[in-house]
């Protein structure tokens, strides 16, 4: 009896490169790189197996998608569920508690990426010997910096704990609101450290900025290409990481669409399936599948917004935009600089929120007329995150569609890898150590949420395979 119910799902072992980034480079007749394919196993099956579950479970359930930014999934799902319970506007306490949770997440995620994953590159240069170009190298040469990274991450995680209940996989956001407010004691504990967090954020931003400006000519072509950019935007054009409408611009800054109500995203974004990848390829409908792909994340957000509503980050944004004369910045390595501007913006926002009495309010949850469909979007640390659900009359999920940040950047990964590969392989079909290193540096700029990418700098397991124009493997190298 029970045997007949047992199902076995087999995932092809060749594509199941556990914790490895797998890259295929396809050459043309002249041994020039024609296409790069960055293979990602983003197949988690969540969209299928949450079907039948009650909607109120979803914000807690879907955050298990990710151990890196669970808060983003928790909040995007909660925003969708607000719609389901008929709530279009939360109470001030609920909205601000959720925002605090989100900025805490942004702060800890950006701090982690900067100090642990990318600072070795920025401090030693990405040409440096991998033997020193790692977090241990940073800890030896810049011991204060390594400690700062740990303390900033801890600060952000404590904020998550105070708002979501736990540092990871909390339960704070519920359909229609939040389940707790912030006590005076919790608030004061954070305010005690806030000045220190400002100072450290500013110095991290300075490292990223100085590195980019000093190496600008070298970085400009590295893994770079013109692209469109997409993000949420506040109604007045300000950067808003928690909520807003959709804006997409092309590589010159021209708006493709603006202030689009995100519940109508399906009219604007289409997801294409390609036979060689588990991950879909989203593109902007009106531009079409060929050129409609776009980038999301810190670089895109800096490009799409008209201004930032916190003074220090706004000042930093102006400096950032000056490098490209106010035009969109398409330099892939500028993601790091943009990320640190957001780090500073996050701590400014956290400070504003902590000083807001609404956080001690007691009006936590509201309810309206039930609906059968809900869409929730948020700017996750790595970019725009889409959650879309439908329910039946018994409160059970019947449809779920998620577009995660890393999926939004899918085509951009391939372009970056292709650019790096094309610069290295020009007629000589060989994979060098330098190429492997540079592919890692390019992928890392996006801070993708892939298991391989969460390894420290210089330690990303990577397998690169080179195919000639007839599909034969001509070279293959693995970096453990």
């Amino acid at each position, binding site marked *: 009896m029970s045997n007949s119910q047992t199902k076995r799902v087999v995932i092809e072992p060749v594509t199941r490169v556990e914790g490895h980034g797998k890259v295929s480079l396809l050459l043309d007749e002249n041994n020039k790189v024609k296409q790069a394919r960055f293979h990602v196993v983003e197949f988690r099956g969540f969209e299928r197996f949450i079907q039948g579950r*009650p909607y109120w479970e979803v914000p807690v359930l879907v955050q298990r998608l990710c151990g890196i930014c669970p808060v983003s999934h928790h909040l995007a799902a909660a925003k969708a569920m607000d719609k389901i319970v008929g709530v279009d506007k939360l109470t001030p306490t609920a909205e601000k508690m959720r925002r605090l949770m989100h900025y805490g997440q942004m702060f800890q995620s950006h701090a982690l990426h900067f100090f642990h994953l990318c600072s070795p590159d920025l401090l030693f240069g990405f040409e440096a010997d991998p033997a020193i170009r790692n977090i241990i190298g940073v800890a030896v040469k810049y011991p204060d910096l390594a400690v700062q990274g740990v303390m900033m991450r801890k600060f952000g995680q404590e904020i998550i704990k105070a708002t979501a*209940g736990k540092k990871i996989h909390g339960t704070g956001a*519920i359909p229609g609101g939040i*389940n707790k407010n912030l006590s005076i004691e919790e608030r004061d504990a954070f305010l005690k450290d806030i000045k220190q967090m400002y100072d450290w954020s500013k110095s991290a931003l300075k490292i990223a900025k100085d590195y980019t400006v000093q190496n600008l000519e070298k970085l400009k072509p590295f893994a770079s290409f013109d692209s469109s950019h997409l993000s949420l935007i506040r109604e007045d054009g300000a950067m808003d990481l928690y909520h807003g409408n959709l804006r997409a611009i092309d590589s010159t800054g021209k708006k493709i669409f603006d202030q689009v109500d995100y519940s109508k995203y399906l009219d604007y974004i289409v997801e294409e399936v390609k036979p060689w990848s588990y991950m879909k390829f989203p593109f902007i409908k009106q531009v079409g599948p060929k050129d409609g792909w776009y980038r999301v994340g810190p670089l895109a957000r800096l490009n799409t917004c008209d201004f930032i509503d916190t003074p220090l980050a706004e000042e930093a944004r102006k400096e950032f935009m000056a490098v490209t004369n106010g035009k969109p910045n398409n330099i892939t390595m500028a993601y790091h600089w943009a990320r640190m501007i957001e780090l500073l913006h996050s701590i400014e926002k956290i400070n504003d929120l902590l000083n807001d009495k609404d956080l001690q309010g007691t009006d936590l949850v509201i309810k309206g007329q039930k609906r059968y469909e809900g869409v929730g979007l948020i700017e996750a640390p790595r970019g725009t995150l889409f959650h879309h659900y439908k329910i039946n009359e018994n409160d059970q999920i019947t449809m779920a569609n998620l577009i995660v940040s890393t999926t939004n950047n899918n085509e951009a990964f391939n372009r970056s890898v292709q650019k790096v590969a094309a610069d290295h392989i020009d007629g000589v079909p060989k994979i060098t150590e330098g190429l492997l290193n540079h592919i890692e540096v390019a992928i890392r700029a996006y801070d993708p949420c892939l298991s391989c990418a969460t390894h420290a700098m210089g330690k990303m397991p990577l397998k690169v395979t080179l195919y000639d124009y007839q599909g034969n493997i001509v070279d293959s190298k693995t970096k453990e």
Partner: protein
Amino acid sequence: MSDQITFTIDGVEVKAKPGQTIMQAADDAGIYIPRLCYHPELTAHGSCRVCTVIVNGKPQTACTQPAAEGMIVENDTPELLEHRRNLVDMLFVEGNHLCMFCERSGNCELQAMAYRLGILAPKYPYFYPDKPVDSTHKDIFLELNRCILCGRCVNASKDVDGKGVFDFVGRSIDKKIAVNSDKNLKDTTMAVTDKAAQVCPVGSINKKGTAFKIPYGSDIEHKK
């Protein structure tokens, strides 16, 4: 004094009133005997066996066994701890207990018992049974993946609510809880105010609109 019964639990002298079970006398004396299906306001039927103690050398369920003069009860012994662990381990694999997103996590007697007994990981292979979810009732969400067949809802509905909404059907490993209708919970007379809606030790019978409303860490099991 003469109407009192005197016996020992792990060598400690305990007094019981006539008609009291070992469990009731132990509770009055402040001695904890682990239990799962037992509920003080409902008829005990000893189904989970977690409260098994050794009475004069023989295993008995403390929730059903009347206290008797001079009996020697063993409760807190390594053998019984192992026995209880095995029982709870089996309950975990016989159902689909996914604490990580269960609305009763932190307020679940099965989870609390696992922590108490020091169970950190499953010992037996999972059965992954195919259990139904019934979300048709406007106020109640029935999630039988988490049912441990304690029978509390059956007794509460029959004895307290006078309705008989729930009953056991099937035998052995196929035994399960069913509702008193050909269709779904919404087609029964079940109301959210029924005793049967208040007594489930796990996340099987849940009141809609209450999920995750208690902040993590301030729920019952954390307070304990």
